[in-house]
């Protein structure tokens, strides 16, 4: 029996180890979803730089204002873009998918769930991954997405900023995209520990109750004698 349990454990362990490989080397994003300042910077970056092509059609401005503690006036005055008129609207893009497809050969995808679809490390590596490559038609490429169709819109900021500043920006942007993919995430990670503590505490009376009832079980001859 012991040997059997050992086999099961070893099999499961080796499975867990095998699961941990990845095809492309990715940078680690190291984002902190609890960092509201970072999320706010990311939100501005996203809305200013990305919404000309990408939408985030499930993300409401009102939710963003509430969660990231940005005042509604500020959002209405400075963030609403491209067809969004009310704070209850979602983040739309300046470009219709058809226009996008015509311009780039492939429509810029909606990015609401991108961080869940590809993973934060991938998104970060993608944003950091543009480089000059004379072999391609447009003279640039991307480390994690070969022959990328997205224009290197970050080129000017990448040039004007220091390496550190740029990677901080991209980290903030990635962080925001992680939040956007699941707006409840920061909250649930915070709140989860109370649920866990409650259940751990509940375990004590439950365990004592069992012990109390089972105290007499060993000497038990027949249940009728209880």
């Amino acid at each position, binding site marked *: *029996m012991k*040997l*059997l349990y050992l*086999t*099961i454990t070893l*099999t*499961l362990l080796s*499975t867990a180890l*095998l*699961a941990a490989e990845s095809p492309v080397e990715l940078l680690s994003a190291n984002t902190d979803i609890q960092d509201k300042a970072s999320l706010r910077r990311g939100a501005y970056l996203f809305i200013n730089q990305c919404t000309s092509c990408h939408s985030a059609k*499930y*993300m*409401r401005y009102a*939710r963003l204002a509430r969660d990231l503690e940005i005042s509604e006036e500020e959002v209405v005055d400075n963030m609403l873009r491209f067809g969004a008129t009310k704070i209850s609207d979602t983040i739309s893009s300046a470009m219709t998918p058809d226009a996008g497809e015509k311009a780039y050969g492939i429509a810029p*995808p909606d990015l*609401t*769930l991108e961080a*869940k*679809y*590809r*993973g934060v490390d991938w998104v970060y590596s993608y944003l950091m991954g543009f480089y000059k490559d004379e072999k391609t038609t447009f003279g640039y490429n991307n480390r994690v997405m070969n022959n990328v169709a997205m224009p290197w819109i970050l080129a000017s900021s990448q040039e004007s900023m220091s390496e550190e500043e740029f990677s901080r920006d991209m980290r903030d942007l990635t962080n925001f995209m992680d939040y956007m*993919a*699941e*707006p*409840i995430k920061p909250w*649930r*990670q915070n*709140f*989860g520990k109370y*649920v*866990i503590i409650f*259940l*751990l505490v*509940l*375990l004590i009376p*439950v*365990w004592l*109750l*069992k012990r109390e*009832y*089972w105290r007499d*079980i*060993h000497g*038990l*001859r*027949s*249940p*009728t004698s*209880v």
Partner: protein
Amino acid sequence: MSLLTRKSTDLLHWIDYRLPIIQAFKTHMSEYYAPKNLNFWYFFGVLAMLAFANQLLSGIWLTMFYTPTIESAFASIEYIMRDVESGWIIRYMHEVGASFFFIAVYLHIYRGFLYGSYKKPRELVWLIGMFIYLLMMAEGFFGYVLPFGNMSFWGAKVIMNIIGVIPVIGEDLQIWVQGDFFISGATLSRFFAFHVALVPIILIAGIYLHVIALHQVGSNNPEGIDIKAHKDENGIPLDGIPFHPYYTVHDLIPVVLFILAFFVTIFYFPDGGGFFIEPPNYIPANNLSTPDHITPVWYFTPFYAMLRAVTITFLGMDAKFWGLIVITGAILVLFFLPWLDRSPVKSLRYKGRVSKAFLMIWTFCFIGLGVLGIKPADWAPEWVSPTFTIIYFAYFLLMPFYTRWETCKTVPERITANGQRSR
């Protein structure tokens, strides 16, 4: 207070006169005698029931907000995750709950392997259980299609095409089930009906019959000792204890632990590391973009690996057809377990070396197939999955022989005083 007690006793008897609730409570709880040595493997039946209740409750909530149309299914899930009050936790309870349900049931079935729970007189308990397992697989499949993400779509397509390879009737059957020539709105709305009404109703009936059948014959135990062989003058098994209160308070501990593990997952790993919700399901179904590799959710992967293990065309039939035969066989053979096991003893503790070694190898292969089913087809050398598949079958098909020929230890007459295993 005493007035209240009297009133409630009156009410109880008023009801009992018309509906035998007191007798039912006695039969199934306070006078249901379970062996006193049940170990942790026996928690999983109750945990499966808990998980099932959770699926029903959270599922009803989801039904209020989900829209079963191709245009809005995906968006309605995001609506639940973002705009519906507490929608996110309801959805996670349902999604994580499905995997926890399968974890509980897999361990529950495995307990049967260990202690020979399927053997006489519990054959029907086992058969009903297998029937439940089939229904659960159908339920899991239909449910996974509903969000209509890209993996939902391609997964459904793969499974539906498997139906299509059945000779003669296959294509018509596939169209009949799909309700269309391809996976369409008609498919989605009928899968919704199956998932929320048809299958759950049969499941409820199945679980009810499962427990009734078990209580008719009583629980087995890790020793495989028949506790009904030694009864006192009142006909009560000497090694039995009333389910209530002993096992009810006992089961509360694993229940709390299970809920704990459940909420740790919900709050910190709701995607189950990509195993509960696969990443491609975060983009909407797209007929033109196939996911890099199509894999089912983890609880189907051993069978998926067997399907892919078959690569030969034989007797003019496509490899897919033989794959279908293999997975059908892999599930069907489980139904026959009570009659394949010819051992004079029930529990592995008293079986011979061959049974022990074979189960160990089988376990390795089954989990191994699960891993292979998750990975791309070219991940392991070609011979691995066919070999594991063959061993999977050999374990069952050779069982009538090795269980009869091996030497077993003698099973004690009684469960020892402290309820622990005797050596």
